[in-house]
Protein backbone atom coordinates (compact mmCIF):
# COMPACT_ATOMS: atom_id res chain seq x y z
CA UNK A 1 0.00 0.00 0.00
CA UNK A 2 2.84 2.31 0.94
CA UNK A 3 4.52 1.50 -2.35
CA UNK A 4 1.34 2.35 -4.28
CA UNK A 5 1.05 5.70 -2.47
CA UNK A 6 4.66 6.48 -3.32
CA UNK A 7 4.07 5.56 -6.97
CA UNK A 8 0.99 7.79 -7.14
CA UNK A 9 2.94 10.63 -5.53
CA UNK A 10 5.80 10.18 -8.02
CA UNK A 11 3.41 10.18 -10.96
CA UNK A 12 1.65 13.31 -9.65
CA UNK A 13 5.00 15.01 -9.14
CA UNK A 14 6.12 14.05 -12.63
CA UNK A 15 2.87 15.38 -14.07
CA UNK A 16 3.26 18.63 -12.14
CA UNK A 17 6.74 19.19 -13.48
CA UNK A 18 5.74 18.25 -17.00
CA UNK A 19 2.95 20.82 -16.77
CA UNK A 20 5.31 23.48 -15.43
CA UNK A 21 7.82 22.81 -18.17
CA UNK A 22 5.07 23.13 -20.77
CA UNK A 23 4.04 26.53 -19.50
CA UNK A 24 7.54 27.90 -19.85
CA UNK A 25 7.68 26.86 -23.52
CA UNK A 26 7.39 30.38 -24.73
CA UNK A 27 7.21 31.63 -28.31
CA UNK A 28 10.61 31.99 -29.86
CA UNK A 29 11.91 34.87 -31.93
CA UNK A 30 10.58 34.40 -35.46
CA UNK A 31 7.47 32.47 -34.37
CA UNK A 32 4.09 33.57 -35.70
CA UNK A 33 1.60 35.15 -33.32
CA UNK A 34 -0.81 32.38 -32.27
CA UNK A 35 -4.60 32.51 -31.89
CA UNK A 36 -4.85 35.77 -33.82
CA UNK A 37 -8.57 35.21 -34.42
CA UNK A 38 -9.42 34.45 -30.79
CA UNK A 39 -12.01 36.99 -29.64
CA UNK A 40 -11.39 38.86 -26.39
CA UNK A 41 -13.50 41.50 -24.68
CA UNK A 42 -11.89 44.75 -23.61
CA UNK A 43 -12.82 47.25 -20.90
CA UNK A 44 -14.90 49.33 -23.31
CA UNK A 45 -17.10 46.33 -24.13
CA UNK A 46 -15.64 45.71 -27.59
CA UNK A 47 -14.73 42.24 -28.76
CA UNK A 48 -11.42 42.21 -30.54
CA UNK A 49 -8.93 39.82 -32.08
CA UNK A 50 -5.18 40.22 -32.34
CA UNK A 51 -5.58 40.36 -36.14
CA UNK A 52 -7.88 43.34 -35.78
CA UNK A 53 -5.61 45.12 -33.28
CA UNK A 54 -2.45 44.64 -35.36
CA UNK A 55 -1.35 47.64 -37.40
CA UNK A 56 0.38 47.72 -40.76
CA UNK A 57 3.79 47.52 -39.08
CA UNK A 58 3.06 45.05 -36.33
CA UNK A 59 1.54 44.26 -32.98
CA UNK A 60 2.55 44.61 -29.36
CA UNK A 61 0.89 42.39 -26.75
CA UNK A 62 1.44 43.06 -23.06
CA UNK A 63 0.31 40.47 -20.53
CA UNK A 64 -0.72 42.58 -17.57
CA UNK A 65 -3.02 42.60 -14.56
CA UNK A 66 -4.35 44.72 -11.70
CA UNK A 67 -2.74 43.12 -8.67
CA UNK A 68 0.94 42.79 -9.47
CA UNK A 69 3.31 45.35 -7.90
CA UNK A 70 5.63 45.02 -10.90
CA UNK A 71 2.81 46.13 -13.19
CA UNK A 72 2.21 49.08 -10.87
CA UNK A 73 5.87 50.01 -11.16
CA UNK A 74 6.03 49.74 -14.93
CA UNK A 75 2.59 50.78 -16.15
CA UNK A 76 3.41 54.49 -16.15
CA UNK A 77 5.39 53.58 -19.28
CA UNK A 78 2.55 51.72 -21.04
CA UNK A 79 0.95 54.81 -22.56
CA UNK A 80 4.21 56.20 -23.89
CA UNK A 81 5.02 52.88 -25.55
CA UNK A 82 1.51 52.61 -26.92
CA UNK A 83 1.65 56.14 -28.34
CA UNK A 84 5.01 55.46 -30.00
CA UNK A 85 3.79 52.16 -31.42
CA UNK A 86 0.35 53.43 -32.43
CA UNK A 87 1.66 56.47 -34.27
CA UNK A 88 3.91 54.15 -36.27
CA UNK A 89 1.39 51.58 -37.34
CA UNK A 90 1.94 49.06 -34.55
CA UNK A 91 -1.22 48.01 -32.73
CA UNK A 92 -1.13 47.55 -28.95
CA UNK A 93 -3.24 45.47 -26.59
CA UNK A 94 -2.88 44.47 -22.95
CA UNK A 95 -4.31 41.11 -21.89
CA UNK A 96 -5.25 40.03 -18.38
CA UNK A 97 -4.84 36.25 -18.01
CA UNK A 98 -5.23 35.95 -14.20
CA UNK A 99 -8.20 33.56 -14.27
CA UNK A 100 -7.61 32.00 -10.84
CA UNK A 101 -8.07 35.28 -9.02
CA UNK A 102 -10.80 36.89 -11.14
CA UNK A 103 -12.81 37.43 -7.97
CA UNK A 104 -9.83 38.88 -6.15
CA UNK A 105 -9.01 42.01 -8.10
CA UNK A 106 -8.84 40.71 -11.66
CA UNK A 107 -12.48 40.88 -12.79
CA UNK A 108 -13.65 42.91 -15.77
CA UNK A 109 -15.03 45.49 -13.32
CA UNK A 110 -11.59 45.80 -11.71
CA UNK A 111 -9.99 46.02 -15.15
CA UNK A 112 -12.32 48.83 -16.15
CA UNK A 113 -11.40 50.76 -13.01
CA UNK A 114 -7.71 50.22 -13.68
CA UNK A 115 -7.91 51.27 -17.33
CA UNK A 116 -9.83 54.40 -16.35
CA UNK A 117 -7.56 55.30 -13.44
CA UNK A 118 -4.42 54.91 -15.51
CA UNK A 119 -6.01 56.44 -18.64
CA UNK A 120 -4.87 53.52 -20.76
CA UNK A 121 -4.69 54.61 -24.40
CA UNK A 122 -4.89 51.03 -25.72
CA UNK A 123 -7.40 48.20 -25.30
CA UNK A 124 -7.16 46.22 -22.07
CA UNK A 125 -8.85 42.86 -22.58
CA UNK A 126 -9.68 39.82 -20.51
CA UNK A 127 -7.87 36.68 -21.63
CA UNK A 128 -10.53 34.17 -20.66
CA UNK A 129 -9.11 30.89 -19.34
CA UNK A 130 -5.66 32.34 -20.20
CA UNK A 131 -6.00 30.88 -23.69
CA UNK A 132 -3.72 33.48 -25.24
CA UNK A 133 -1.23 33.39 -22.38
CA UNK A 134 -0.99 29.63 -22.82
CA UNK A 135 -0.58 29.89 -26.59
CA UNK A 136 2.14 32.53 -26.14
CA UNK A 137 3.80 30.64 -23.29
CA UNK A 138 3.63 33.78 -21.17
CA UNK A 139 4.71 33.25 -17.57
CA UNK A 140 4.42 36.55 -15.77
CA UNK A 141 3.05 40.06 -15.65
CA UNK A 142 4.14 42.35 -17.13
CA UNK A 143 5.52 40.54 -20.18
CA UNK A 144 5.85 42.05 -23.66
CA UNK A 145 5.60 40.33 -27.05
CA UNK A 146 6.33 42.50 -30.12
CA UNK A 147 5.54 41.21 -33.63
CA UNK A 148 6.48 42.62 -37.02
CA UNK A 149 4.19 43.27 -39.99
CA UNK A 150 4.07 39.52 -40.74
CA UNK A 151 3.14 38.93 -37.11
CA UNK A 152 6.43 37.20 -36.43
CA UNK A 153 7.93 37.67 -32.96
CA UNK A 154 10.79 40.18 -32.96
CA UNK A 155 11.06 41.08 -29.26
CA UNK A 156 10.02 39.31 -26.07
CA UNK A 157 10.55 40.29 -22.48
CA UNK A 158 10.71 43.28 -20.19
CA UNK A 159 9.67 46.87 -20.80
CA UNK A 160 13.05 48.19 -19.69
CA UNK A 161 15.76 47.58 -17.12
CA UNK A 162 14.47 49.75 -14.29
CA UNK A 163 11.00 49.14 -12.90
CA UNK A 164 11.67 51.47 -9.98
CA UNK A 165 12.57 54.60 -11.83
CA UNK A 166 11.73 55.47 -15.43
CA UNK A 167 14.21 58.34 -15.42
CA UNK A 168 17.09 56.00 -14.57
CA UNK A 169 16.46 53.46 -17.31
CA UNK A 170 19.68 52.46 -19.06
CA UNK A 171 18.20 50.02 -21.56
CA UNK A 172 14.69 50.77 -22.82
CA UNK A 173 14.27 47.31 -24.35
CA UNK A 174 10.68 47.55 -25.65
CA UNK A 175 11.01 51.14 -26.85
CA UNK A 176 14.29 50.39 -28.62
CA UNK A 177 12.72 47.33 -30.24
CA UNK A 178 9.76 49.38 -31.50
CA UNK A 179 12.09 52.05 -32.89
CA UNK A 180 14.23 49.44 -34.64
CA UNK A 181 11.14 47.74 -36.04
CA UNK A 182 9.87 51.06 -37.40
CA UNK A 183 13.28 51.86 -38.87
CA UNK A 184 13.52 48.41 -40.41
CA UNK A 185 16.80 47.77 -38.61
CA UNK A 186 18.02 44.83 -36.54
CA UNK A 187 16.75 44.72 -32.96
CA UNK A 188 19.85 44.52 -30.77
CA UNK A 189 18.29 42.88 -27.74
CA UNK A 190 15.54 40.50 -28.79
CA UNK A 191 14.92 38.70 -25.52
CA UNK A 192 15.13 39.87 -21.92
CA UNK A 193 13.90 38.66 -18.58
CA UNK A 194 12.60 40.54 -15.59
CA UNK A 195 11.09 39.74 -12.23
CA UNK A 196 7.33 39.65 -12.28
CA UNK A 197 4.25 38.00 -10.86
CA UNK A 198 3.39 34.51 -12.03
CA UNK A 199 0.28 34.35 -14.19
CA UNK A 200 -2.50 33.00 -11.98
CA UNK A 201 -3.76 30.18 -14.16
CA UNK A 202 -6.88 28.28 -13.12
CA UNK A 203 -5.99 25.01 -11.42
Amino acid at each position, binding site marked *: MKKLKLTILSVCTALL*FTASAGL*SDSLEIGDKAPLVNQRVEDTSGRTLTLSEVAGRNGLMVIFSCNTCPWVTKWENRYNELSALAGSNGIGVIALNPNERIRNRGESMVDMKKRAQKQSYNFPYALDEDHKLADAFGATRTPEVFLFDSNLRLVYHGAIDDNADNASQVESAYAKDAINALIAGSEIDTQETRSLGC*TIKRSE
Partner: protein
Amino acid sequence: MKAILLVASLMVTFFSVQGDEILVDATAEEILEKIAIHQGEKPVLANFWATWCAPCIEEFPHLMELREKYEGQFELIFVSGDFREAREEAKEFLREQGVDFETYFKVGKDNEFITTISDEWTGALPFTIVYNKAGDVSAAWEGKAEYETFESQLLKVISED
Protein backbone atom coordinates in the same frame (compact mmCIF):
# COMPACT_ATOMS: atom_id res chain seq x y z
CA MET B 1 27.61 54.74 34.18
CA LYS B 2 30.28 54.38 31.48
CA ALA B 3 30.08 50.61 31.80
CA ILE B 4 26.31 50.65 31.31
CA LEU B 5 26.67 52.81 28.20
CA LEU B 6 29.34 50.49 26.86
CA VAL B 7 27.18 47.41 27.41
CA ALA B 8 24.17 49.17 25.83
CA SER B 9 26.25 50.19 22.85
CA LEU B 10 27.60 46.65 22.44
CA MET B 11 24.07 45.27 22.62
CA VAL B 12 22.85 47.69 19.97
CA THR B 13 25.76 46.69 17.73
CA PHE B 14 25.14 42.99 18.38
CA PHE B 15 21.45 43.14 17.57
CA SER B 16 21.86 45.31 14.51
CA VAL B 17 24.47 42.90 13.13
CA GLN B 18 22.14 40.00 13.93
CA GLY B 19 19.35 41.79 12.08
CA ASP B 20 21.50 42.42 9.03
CA GLU B 21 22.84 38.90 8.89
CA ILE B 22 19.49 37.42 8.03
CA LEU B 23 19.27 39.51 4.86
CA VAL B 24 22.46 40.19 2.96
CA ASP B 25 22.73 41.99 -0.39
CA ALA B 26 23.98 39.63 -3.08
CA THR B 27 24.49 39.59 -6.82
CA ALA B 28 23.61 36.52 -8.89
CA GLU B 29 27.29 35.53 -8.99
CA GLU B 30 27.54 35.76 -5.20
CA ILE B 31 24.43 33.62 -4.80
CA LEU B 32 25.84 30.99 -7.17
CA GLU B 33 29.02 31.01 -5.09
CA LYS B 34 27.00 30.45 -1.91
CA ILE B 35 25.32 27.50 -3.64
CA ALA B 36 28.61 26.10 -4.96
CA ILE B 37 30.15 26.05 -1.47
CA HIS B 38 27.98 23.02 -0.69
CA GLN B 39 28.94 21.06 -3.80
CA GLY B 40 30.08 17.56 -2.83
CA GLU B 41 28.80 18.12 0.70
CA LYS B 42 24.99 18.33 0.57
CA PRO B 43 22.08 19.24 -1.75
CA VAL B 44 20.84 22.82 -1.96
CA LEU B 45 17.35 24.21 -2.43
CA ALA B 46 17.29 27.87 -3.49
CA ASN B 47 14.00 29.71 -3.33
CA PHE B 48 13.47 33.16 -4.86
CA TRP B 49 10.64 35.07 -3.21
CA ALA B 50 9.27 38.52 -2.40
CA THR B 51 6.96 40.01 0.21
CA TRP B 52 4.57 41.24 -2.51
CA CYS B 53 4.27 37.75 -3.99
CA ALA B 54 1.32 35.94 -2.38
CA PRO B 55 2.28 32.42 -3.58
CA CYS B 56 5.79 32.99 -2.19
CA ILE B 57 4.41 33.87 1.22
CA GLU B 58 2.13 30.83 1.15
CA GLU B 59 4.89 28.34 0.40
CA PHE B 60 7.56 29.90 2.64
CA PRO B 61 6.49 28.03 5.84
CA HIS B 62 6.71 24.68 4.01
CA LEU B 63 10.38 25.29 3.37
CA MET B 64 11.04 26.35 6.95
CA GLU B 65 9.32 23.18 8.16
CA LEU B 66 11.35 20.99 5.82
CA ARG B 67 14.57 22.69 6.87
CA GLU B 68 13.85 21.65 10.43
CA LYS B 69 12.70 18.14 9.49
CA TYR B 70 15.81 17.41 7.38
CA GLU B 71 18.22 19.47 9.44
CA GLY B 72 21.75 19.33 8.10
CA GLN B 73 20.75 17.14 5.15
CA PHE B 74 20.29 20.01 2.71
CA GLU B 75 21.04 23.72 2.55
CA LEU B 76 18.13 26.13 2.22
CA ILE B 77 18.93 29.41 0.49
CA PHE B 78 16.31 32.14 0.34
CA VAL B 79 16.75 35.07 -2.03
CA SER B 80 14.40 38.03 -1.79
CA GLY B 81 13.55 39.80 -5.04
CA ASP B 82 11.83 42.64 -3.22
CA PHE B 83 11.94 46.25 -4.26
CA ARG B 84 14.66 48.22 -2.51
CA GLU B 85 12.09 50.19 -0.47
CA ALA B 86 10.63 46.93 0.88
CA ARG B 87 13.95 45.64 2.26
CA GLU B 88 12.92 46.26 5.89
CA GLU B 89 9.56 44.64 5.27
CA ALA B 90 11.34 41.59 3.89
CA LYS B 91 13.55 41.43 6.96
CA GLU B 92 10.53 41.72 9.22
CA PHE B 93 8.82 38.86 7.38
CA LEU B 94 11.93 36.69 7.76
CA ARG B 95 11.94 37.35 11.50
CA GLU B 96 8.24 36.48 11.75
CA GLN B 97 8.94 33.21 9.99
CA GLY B 98 11.67 32.39 12.51
CA VAL B 99 14.56 32.75 10.06
CA ASP B 100 17.77 32.94 12.06
CA PHE B 101 20.23 32.14 9.28
CA GLU B 102 21.71 34.12 6.40
CA THR B 103 19.43 34.83 3.46
CA TYR B 104 19.98 37.12 0.50
CA PHE B 105 18.56 40.25 -1.08
CA LYS B 106 18.85 40.49 -4.85
CA VAL B 107 20.97 43.31 -6.21
CA GLY B 108 21.67 44.05 -9.86
CA LYS B 109 19.66 44.32 -13.04
CA ASP B 110 16.87 41.78 -13.48
CA ASN B 111 17.87 40.44 -16.89
CA GLU B 112 21.48 39.70 -15.93
CA PHE B 113 20.45 38.41 -12.51
CA ILE B 114 17.83 36.00 -13.84
CA THR B 115 19.85 34.65 -16.76
CA THR B 116 22.89 34.15 -14.52
CA ILE B 117 20.89 32.17 -11.98
CA SER B 118 19.18 29.79 -14.40
CA ASP B 119 18.08 29.28 -17.99
CA GLU B 120 14.95 27.71 -16.55
CA TRP B 121 13.81 30.96 -14.95
CA THR B 122 11.82 33.52 -16.93
CA GLY B 123 11.61 35.89 -13.95
CA ALA B 124 8.26 34.85 -12.48
CA LEU B 125 8.17 34.47 -8.70
CA PRO B 126 8.34 32.26 -6.77
CA PHE B 127 11.15 30.31 -8.41
CA THR B 128 12.74 27.22 -6.88
CA ILE B 129 15.84 25.36 -7.95
CA VAL B 130 17.10 22.15 -6.40
CA TYR B 131 20.73 21.03 -6.75
CA ASN B 132 21.94 17.56 -5.89
CA LYS B 133 25.04 16.86 -3.84
CA ALA B 134 27.18 16.98 -6.98
CA GLY B 135 25.92 20.49 -7.68
CA ASP B 136 23.79 19.56 -10.71
CA VAL B 137 20.28 20.94 -11.10
CA SER B 138 17.82 18.23 -10.14
CA ALA B 139 14.61 20.27 -10.53
CA ALA B 140 13.55 23.84 -11.19
CA TRP B 141 10.13 25.40 -11.39
CA GLU B 142 8.25 28.67 -11.33
CA GLY B 143 5.13 29.14 -9.25
CA LYS B 144 3.92 27.90 -5.91
CA ALA B 145 4.50 24.32 -4.79
CA GLU B 146 2.92 22.28 -2.03
CA TYR B 147 4.78 20.79 0.92
CA GLU B 148 4.68 17.30 -0.64
CA THR B 149 6.30 18.52 -3.85
CA PHE B 150 9.15 20.22 -2.01
CA GLU B 151 9.62 17.14 0.16
CA SER B 152 9.65 14.65 -2.71
CA GLN B 153 12.13 16.77 -4.65
CA LEU B 154 14.33 17.07 -1.59
CA LEU B 155 14.16 13.37 -0.77
CA LYS B 156 15.27 12.60 -4.30
CA VAL B 157 18.51 14.53 -3.86
CA ILE B 158 19.04 13.68 -0.21
CA SER B 159 18.84 9.94 -0.96
CA GLU B 160 21.37 10.15 -3.81
CA ASP B 161 24.86 8.87 -3.00
